[in-house]
């Protein structure tokens, strides 16, 4: 019955939170390309939120603009989520593959991004007294995306509702672990680098005498 274009599937999934992802799985649909574009848009949204939010709502520290934290908050968090979820759920009878988790998670993020962009646009025409509308639209996006994410994970792994929730909570814990280890590794390599560099300078000084 369901025959859609790639974008049509995306639309179907977003507006049918209850069975959309099951349909997607059943029909073996979902495009990795679209998913990557969505993740990129998530990053663009992060930048837009910081730079293009109306002046009266923009609390960002404008003296410095560093894009790295924004990349971390969007792209890195997303892929950590995917990997953590995959690593966890393959151990607990999850049926989702890495690709499936990635695509489904990205699809579930669309309302959050869209509402975010609408919020950025609205913040340029609203005044502070009307900020309730901004809050409303942002929470609408978050709520919708959370519902979709639960459904996405349920469909991907064929879990019961309760098990999905538990697995998602533990995914967050796993994310923290992964990030912790990554930072540990990074600082370790930094120290190795500093060690190597100081040896180099030492030797350089000796040679020059």
């Amino acid at each position, binding site marked *: 019955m369901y025959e859609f274009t790639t974008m049509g599937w995306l639309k179907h999934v977003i507006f049918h939170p209850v069975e959309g992802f099951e349909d997607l799985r059943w029909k073996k649909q979902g495009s990795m390309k679209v998913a990557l574009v969505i993740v990129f848009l998530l990053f663009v949204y992060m930048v837009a939120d910081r730079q293009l939010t109306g002046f009266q*709502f923009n*609390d960002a520290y404008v003296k410095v603009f560093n894009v790295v934290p924004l990349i971390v908050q969007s792209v890195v968090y997303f892929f950590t989520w995917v990997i953590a979820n995959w690593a966890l759920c393959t151990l607990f009878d999850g049926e989702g593959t890495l690709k499936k988790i990635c695509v489904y998670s990205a699809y579930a993020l669309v309302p959050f991004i869209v509402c975010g962009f609408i919020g950025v646009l609205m913040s340029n025409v609203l005044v502070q007294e009307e900020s309730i509308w901004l809050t409303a639209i942002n929470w609408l996006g978050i709520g919708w995306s959370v519902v979709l994410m639960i459904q996405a994970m349920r469909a991907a792994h064929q879990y019961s509702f309760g098990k999905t929730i538990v697995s998602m909570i533990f995914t967050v814990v796993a994310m923290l672990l992964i990030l912790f280890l990554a930072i540990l590794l990074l600082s370790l390599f930094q120290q190795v680098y500093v060690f190597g560099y100081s040896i180099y300078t030492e030797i350089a000084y000796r040679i020059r005498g």
Partner: protein
Amino acid sequence: MKNSLKKLLALSMAAVTAMTMSVTAFADEPYNSYNYDTWEDAIPSQSGYRVERTVTGEEMGLDRLTDPEDPLFVSETAVTTLDGAMDFFVDDERNEFWVADSENNRILRLNEDLEIIGRYYGVSGDSEINVDETTGLSNFMNPYGLYVTTSPFTGDLTLYVADYDNSRVVKAKVVSETECELIHEYTRPEEALYTSQTFNPTKIVVDQAENVYAVVQSVNTGSVQFARDGSFTGFYGANRVEVTAAVIAQRLWRTIASNEQIAGMTRNVPVEYANFDIDEDGFIYTVTEVSTSTDAVKKLNPAGYNIWDNEVGNEYTFGDLSGNVWDSTTNTLHATRLTDIVIGNNGLINILDYETGRVFQYDRNCNLICIFGTKNSTSDQRGSFSNPNAVEALGNNIYVLDGGKNDITVFTETTFGSYVHSAFEYYDEGRYSDAKADWEEVIKRDGNYTMAYIGLGRAALNDGEYSEALEYFETAYDQDNYDKAFEYTREEFLRENFTIIIVIILVLIIWFIVLKIIHKKGIYLIKKKAKEGK
């Protein structure tokens, strides 16, 4: 081409040399002036005040006290310098200074040019405390604070002294340049409400009704208040306990601890305040020395209620904003210690930080105007303090009393300062457009001065120049005022373009209706692919 490059190089070299020369030739204050921007970052600024001179005991003419010919003669051996002076006071009516020369146990009276015109070692009259047998005076012992006013009841010049070691507050009528007559003595209140064993007054303030408020050492329930007849009427304007993690933890422990354990715990008591001042309208301003986020500076109404209360949603900040700052020149960790406050006749609030020797000047709405003064390791330069104990304002000058260097430093306002002050005066009265010229002069001298942009923005907003106002507020990063200006801009935009907007909306609605109708008839303007592709 090569020649022009050479010329350019030579020119720039000359410019650089000229610049360095002018820097070395310029005599400056021993500190860099700074101000805070919207993000509470310290940024360089122009000096609002510069040191005019410092006045020591010698320049005050204290050697007159040792001259037998002089009417102010005390004895051949009288000390001719200040020693550990704790406080001084400006009598606005007569333009006179009164200095509590604490360790010399005397009060000095100086004229506008800080030259001595009177000295008081004690009070005559009916007192039994510390009476000198030769002169018959009841001598002062370590007077910590004083207050001088013309009594609204009798019209006499009345001197109030917080006589620290004599455990009393003296109220005396000034008779001549060497004598004063005791009117009343306020001693430790013999009442159950007053629980402290000692009564060592440090600072004193008197209101219009001649109620006396005394800050008393180790009394943390507020200042001790006496009525005109000398009776103790209670405590006024106590600080509150600052809510820290330790306080909350102790509150939790107390609920489960036994009575014996509770008795062993330290009590959470508020910090006593260090100093206070009273303005023309009878509001009392207090400062608290210990670094605290609650109640560091308060403006109390006659009921003792703090008007500058941050816990009801205000955002008043005083002193250095960055908290504990490591200062590499003195190798010390600064913790703000606000020791004195004075409200000038022009309504400006000056707060002295003992720790850094800085005077912070605010307008009546607590906008920071400028910061001046310093404290460094040697403190031998003018404008640098050792024990800055008190600050006073007279006219456009600010005076700082140093109890370590035993002198008074006189600050006069710079051109920049005078523009800022006149701009703030207009601004605080709400005459934003009148302040415009002054703000523009301020910006010419200091383009980082945030308040100038806010002031200009307010003026533009008043004149209906909304887009200009938006620009100014954006420069100052003042979101709240920007919001107001934006609201007006939006309103104006909607009003001017009302017809166009309505027309666009109507056209869109009609367009959709037309589309619906032709879709029903099976005509598509854009061909659909997916639907037909079954």
